[in-house]
Structure formats: C-alpha cells, structure tokens
C-alpha cells in the first residue's frame, strides 16, 4: 500500500471509528470523511459523486454491474472472452454470450457486432487485461454497441486500468465502471462501481439502504478513505510513474528476448523478433507478460522466489494451484506454451534495481529448467 493511504485510514480504525449512518457528532465526522472521499474519487474517475457506489472490491463491483443490470432489465448479457472471472462467471451464470478476441487479446469487433441484438441489456469489456496488460478499444466497442444494441449499457472492469491510464478519458464512454483499491496502492477489500445516472440497476445486497439503495451495508469508511487517498496519489504521479515504468518494462522485455531463445511476448502483433522494435502502444506500462518455451511457470516461479524475485503466471484457483489461463487460451496460445507464462508486474514502488534483479534471475532459472527437460 501507499504509505499515504495507510496513514489516511488509521484514524478511522482508531478515534474516528464511528458509523457514518449514525445521528451523532462522531457519525457526522465519519460521514464527512465518506463524502470527501466520494467527491475526490468522482473527480478522479470522471463521474458525479452520486454515481459512485462503494463495494467490497472489484469482484463485487463487477457482479453488481452484470447481475444488477440483468436483474433490473432481463435480456442478454455479453462480455469478451478475456474478462476477469468476476465478469465471466456472472455472465455465464445468466446464459450470456462470450465474444472472442484476436491473437493479441483484443476483442474482435466484428464478432461483437454479430453477438449484439435488441435483446442485449449489457455489454462488459474490460479496460486493461489483468494478465497481459492489453488495453481494449473501449470507444470502438461503445460505437459498435450503439449501432447494434442501442438499448444496452456498457460496463468496463477498469480495475487494472486506473494505475496506468487516465480513466476520466478512457472510461467516459462506459455506463458502469468497476475499480478496486488494492490495484493502485489502496487496501484490499474495497472498491467501487460507477453507475451513471439513468442506468437501471437492481441491488445485490438488501438491507439498510446505504449507497442510495444500490448497496446496503455499513460503509468501510477506513478503506474508502484510504482508497481515495491512494487514488489521489496515483493520479498526481501517474504521468511520471508511467513514463519511467515504460522504460523499465521495455528493458525487461527486450532484455529477456535478448538473453533467451523462445520468449514470446504476448499482446503484440505477429511473432515479433528479427530486431524490429516491438510495438507496445496497446499495452499498459506495468505488466511484462511473456510465454517461454520448454518450461513450466510453477517451477520457474519457485526458482525466482529463491532469489527474491516474486512474479506470477496466470491466475490461481482456490487451492493455490496455477490454472492454465483462459486469457491465453482465448488468444489462441497453445496449452503447453501457456503453461510457461510469466508475468512480471511493475508498480509505483518498483525500482531500476528490481528490473536488474529480474533480468539477472530469469535467464539462468529458465536455462536450468530447460536442462532438466
């Protein structure tokens, strides 16, 4: 977490602990903090304060968007094949349609158009893919939706986007936007859904009517205040962080490609290679994702951890085992290669030394594993 966010939340775990729905002075103090946080976040996201619904994280926000719209309006829900499970599962649970992506992981707009009709109530396409860092063309998606399903609302899971992109611009076309605090230096277990005025949405949690009846339950004031502070810090430093991270990301990916045979960068057009500079303009700066021939990420991550390089592969299931990535499968990456995926994430706290450490650690670990077949 960002230290500023930690500091911001502490008073609300201690002396300013009150329930913002109460009627006394302590409650009004908490309420004030909640209102401040809501206003700040609204500004940073490009929404009106009343459009912000606080949730317990990104998964709840995604579920509320998909299921809330479906419960309110019925009809068909549609999403891309590379969505986070927090969108895919709700869509599939309602018998929705899943739209394929191309080899870079970008939604196929023709297939999207073909999947749309009058019955469609919601289309959900993420802003940035959490595994590959590929940015989806939301404006083009919105145009296709307007043309082929004018009554549908557009939801975007922007959980992976806020840290790297100016979401006020990138998500302006979306009617619903999900965010999670822990992706930009806030605490886990808190997030929000932007619900633009006029979008019909049935609540998932019924009770005391908090969040204008869209999400009952006492607000997590400390978490929300910390999320707002983390968002403020993120937005204030974003341009600088993105600029330096992009340089490191390029160094990492180009360095791996130079040091090792059989490193396939995901999210770029074609097989790449042959000295030509790789076009990474469609990817956010903070994710370096590759698939490596002849190794398994489980074993690679184990060896990297021994030299204190902490990376990840695809997503993990409840048991902690690595599952073959549905994102890579949707991109047409062969299963054996997908088992060799490696995601090196960079953030606001990363340093040039981290990049050097990763560049020093990955090639020998890969060579070792390859030598054992």
């Amino acid at each position, binding site marked *: 977490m960002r230290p500023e966010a930690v500091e911001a939340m502490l008073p609300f775990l201690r002396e300013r602990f009150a329930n913002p729905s109460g009627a006394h002075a302590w409650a009004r103090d908490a309420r004030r903090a909640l209102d401040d946080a809501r206003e700040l976040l609204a500004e940073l996201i490009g929404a009106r304060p009343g459009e912000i619904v606080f949730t317990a994280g990104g998964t709840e926000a995604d579920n509320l968007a998909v299921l809330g719209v479906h419960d309110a309006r019925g009809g068909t829900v549609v999403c891309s094949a590379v969505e986070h499970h927090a969108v895919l599962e709700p869509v599939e649970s309602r018998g929705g349609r899943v739209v394929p992506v191309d080899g870079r992981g970008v939604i196929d707009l023709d297939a999207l158009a073909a999947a749309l009709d009058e019955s469609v109530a919601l289309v959900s396409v993420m802003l940035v893919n959490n595994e590959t860092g590929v940015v989806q063309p939301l404006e083009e998606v919105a145009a296709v939706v307007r043309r082929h399903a004018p009554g549908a609302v557009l939801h975007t899971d922007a959980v992976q986007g806020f840290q790297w992109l100016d979401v006020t611009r990138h998500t302006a076309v979306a009617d619903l936007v999900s965010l999670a605090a822990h992706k930009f230096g806030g605490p886990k277990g808190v997030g929000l859904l932007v619900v633009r005025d006029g979008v019909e949405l049935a609540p998932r949690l019924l009770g005391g009517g908090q969040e204008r009846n869209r999400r009952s339950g006492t607000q997590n004031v400390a978490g929300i205040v910390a999320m707002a502070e983390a968002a403020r810090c993120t937005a204030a430093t974003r341009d600088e962080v993105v600029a330096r991270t992009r340089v490191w990301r390029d160094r990492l990916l180009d360095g791996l490609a130079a040091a090792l045979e059989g490193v396939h960068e995901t999210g770029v057009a074609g097989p790449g290679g042959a000295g030509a500079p790789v076009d990474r303009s469609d990817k956010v700066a903070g994710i370096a994702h590759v698939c490596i021939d002849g190794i398994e990420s489980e074993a690679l991550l*184990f*060896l990297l951890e021994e030299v204190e390089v902490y990376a990840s592969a695809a997503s993990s299931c409840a*048991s*902690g*085992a*690595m599952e073959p990535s549905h994102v890579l499968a949707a991109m047409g990456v062969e299963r054996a290669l997908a088992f060799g995926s490696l995601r090196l994430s960079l953030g606001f706290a990363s340093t040039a030394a981290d990049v050097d450490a990763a560049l020093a650690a990955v090639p020998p670990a890969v060579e070792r594993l390859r030598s054992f077949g």
Partner: protein
Amino acid sequence: MSTARRVLVALSGGVDSSIAAALLLEEGHDVVGVTMKLWGGESDSGCCSVSDVDDARRVAQQLGIDHHVFNFGDDFTRHVVDPYVAAHAAGCTPNPCIECNRHLKFDRLLRRAEALGFDAVATGHHARVVTRCDGTRRVARGADVRKDQSYVLHMLGQDQLARTLLPVGALDKQEVRARAEELGLRTAAKPDSQDVCFITRAGGGRDAFLGRRIPRRRGVLVDTGGVAVGEVSDVHLVTVGQRRGLGPGNGAPRYALAVDAEAGVVTVGGLAALLVEETVVGELVWAHEPASGRLLAQCSAHGTPLPCRVAAVRGPDGGGDGSVRVRWTEPQRRVAPGQSIVLYDGDEVVGGGVAR
C-alpha cells in the same frame, strides 16, 4: 539419517504426510511442502479438494515450512484417469494408486524436485526404503503391517529409491496419530483416505463415474459350457473374482471367471472353477534385477502375501518376453487381468507387474 538434505515432502492434507514432514524436520533436513493438484477442484472429498489443500497448507504453517501447490492435473488425467477408464472399458482391473505413484509422485514430482534443486522427495506412505549389504535399495513393508503400502510402491527402481524418503514407515498408525496430536496438527484425527481419490460419493460413486465415460454395455452371463445363465446391466463394472450381482446361484455362489467386454460376455462358475494353479505376470518392473524362485506374491493392496515359485516365461524359441509365471503353492483364486501382483522376498519388494 546422517547428513541434512533438501527434501520436498508431498503433503496430501492427511495425517501421515503431515508427520512425514515433522519427522524430517526433527532430523534436521531442509523441508519444503508441496501439494499436488491432480483432479477436480471443489469436490468435498477425495484428494485435491480445496479442504485437503487447506489442511496441507495449515500443517505446513504450523510446522513452519514453505508450502507450494503444483498443478499436475493434465498428467493425472493422461496417466491415471484415462487409463483407469480404458481398463474398465476393456474388462480389466485398473490400479489407479499405483499408476499415480508411478507417473505422478515418483516421476513427475521427482523430476520437478530435482529441477528445483531438491535431493529427495518424501511421502507419508507406510513403507520403508532399506539398503542391502550390496548397497542396492528395496522398498520394504512398513512397521504397521495393517497399514503397509509397499504394494503400491513396488515400481520404484534404484534411481528413484535413492531419492525417496518414507519417514513414517517406521511408525505404526497409532504413533503417527499420537505425534500429530502432540504437535497439535489439525490432521491428527482425520480419517484415512479410502478408495479411488478422484471418484466421490457425491458424484455417484464408481458406477456413475464410469457410466459418464463408457457407454453402458449389457452383458450375458454364461457358464463354463457357454450356456447363457443370466445377464448383467453393464459388463464394464464386472471384475474377475466378483460374486456380488451375478445372479441367484441357487445354492452355490457364482463368481466371474472371465470378462470379455468387447463381446459382452461374462463367464461364471463356482468357487472351484475360480481357482488356478498359476498366474502369468507381465509388464514387470524390478527393484534391482529380475528375481525368481521361492517368493511371496501379493495380489491386492491389503491382500495376504502368498507363497509361490516364480520363473521366467520361455517362448518356443527359448527366449522370454519378460513376463514371469507365478506357480502358487496352493491353488489360488484367479487374479483379475490388469491387477497388480507384487513379489516379495520376505518383507522386501523385489518387483511387480500386472496379471495377464
């Protein structure tokens, strides 16, 4: 154990492997725990359920060792589940635990461990690795004879035995549970695993599992003279030696003597017809080198070791195909084709294969 080694212990989430890890730690080894994710995901019982992984992780935390989960699901499907189904489809009796040990624990995991810099893999099996005077190793029966699992480890060769530790083989089950109790491990009172781990009662058991994978094949029961005497609803579910479900058998019970899954015919007969003088064993794996002469043979995981005389099968040209003829000292019930037969010299495994 003289020198400390770097050991990867396979934690299933059960009490035996928990104590295997604890014993290795006491001996001063550098221990890391791993749970193999082999099958299913959310099943409430059997191996690899989330709750078993939770137990394994919690035990590792309590012991203060690292814990990892390796997903070997594809290998498990290819080497254990698919052959299990194929064996039933062919009217044979599969040995899924043995295939899992052969292909997963002592191949896939052992190779992974080596690549990650481990000296050995340990499991919680009730069996021992013993070293003979000549320096070669054998799997030997565990101290708790009733819990002995040497049968399912018979395929281990010298290379694997040199890198395998079976720490709980020296204890009986009560001691294992007592140790776990002392250490306050949550697995102390956990029931022993039973049956085939990837088949759950909630999923309808074995018949339902196979029914979803093999088209049902009604079968006719014939006597040894070829006369039809009854029917079975699915020939794939009949095992040689089976008595249950094979009809009235007015008076004398009726046993399956042979299963021809392709033709849909089960030959049945009385107990006398079930008895054989000898059994041919193929696909042999020897611990060190081929053995023959007076040995003991065990035909199921907890079966009685039976005295026998073992000799290589010779073809007409005098050469052999590697199979052996096991001549029983006393006539024995027919062993279902596909069933593993393990050969012992005293308490030590010398090899094993499958009944033909």
